[in-house]
């Protein structure tokens, strides 16, 4: 009795996934390290702007209102939390992989 071989398994490629075209896939493949680096840079810049705004306000710059200072620090807060979230996700994924039972 012959056993029919299992049909070769073709993993779904990104091009077949809904919403992602082949062109998008071939264009810049994002990696976590890159986006985390970008998020860190953004957070750093936002923090810098918040500090500068607070300094300008303290110096009595008439163009710098209270709300601008608070908004700048709120933006920095969000940017830092975004970077932290990316870091947490990456660590989580790493731990998940490391705990794989073989």
């Amino acid at each position: 009795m012959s056993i029919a071989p299992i049909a070769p398994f073709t993993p779904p490629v990104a091009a077949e996934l809904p919403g992602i075209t082949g062109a998008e896939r071939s264009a810049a493949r994002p990696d976590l390290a890159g986006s985390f680096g970008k998020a860190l840079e953004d957070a750093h810049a936002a923090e810098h702007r918040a500090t500068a705004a607070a300094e300008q306000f303290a110096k009595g710059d008439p163009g710098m209102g209270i709300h601008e200072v608070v908004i700048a620090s709120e933006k920095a807060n969000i940017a830092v939390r975004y970077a932290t979230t990316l870091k947490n996700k990456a660590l989580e994924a790493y731990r998940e992989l490391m705990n794989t039972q073989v």
Partner: protein
Amino acid sequence: MSTMDFFTAMEVSASGLSAERTRMNVAASNLANAQTTQAAGGGPYKRRDVVMQSVDVPGVQRTPFAQAVKGVAVSQISQDTAPPRLEYDPGHPQANAQGYVAYPNVNPVEEMVDMITASRAYEAGITTMTTAVNMAERALGIGR
């Protein structure tokens, strides 16, 4: 920061807050000078009014939709050309030949209304801002 579209709403409401702050300053100036008979350039103080203008949001040029979103800025502070209020007071140093003193064309009731409008608009801007921040925080909390 162009990468985070949440900041667009924040930039827009920030521009609104700045504009309302200017409106508040102008209302304060009008109220403070409601009895000023001697202003720079001669004559009584003239009522000021803010002229608002929609402007592009700084740092947002990525998508056509984002470009359609506009912030606000005060384009100029105009002077009200309404005639001054004349009061008969011959003893006043600024009285004219007929004994009338020209007082500013400021109506305190109108200024109070302007002030309340500015205050409410400021509150609305803060609410927009808080909502945008809350949305960003909710998004960061996805999956947690």
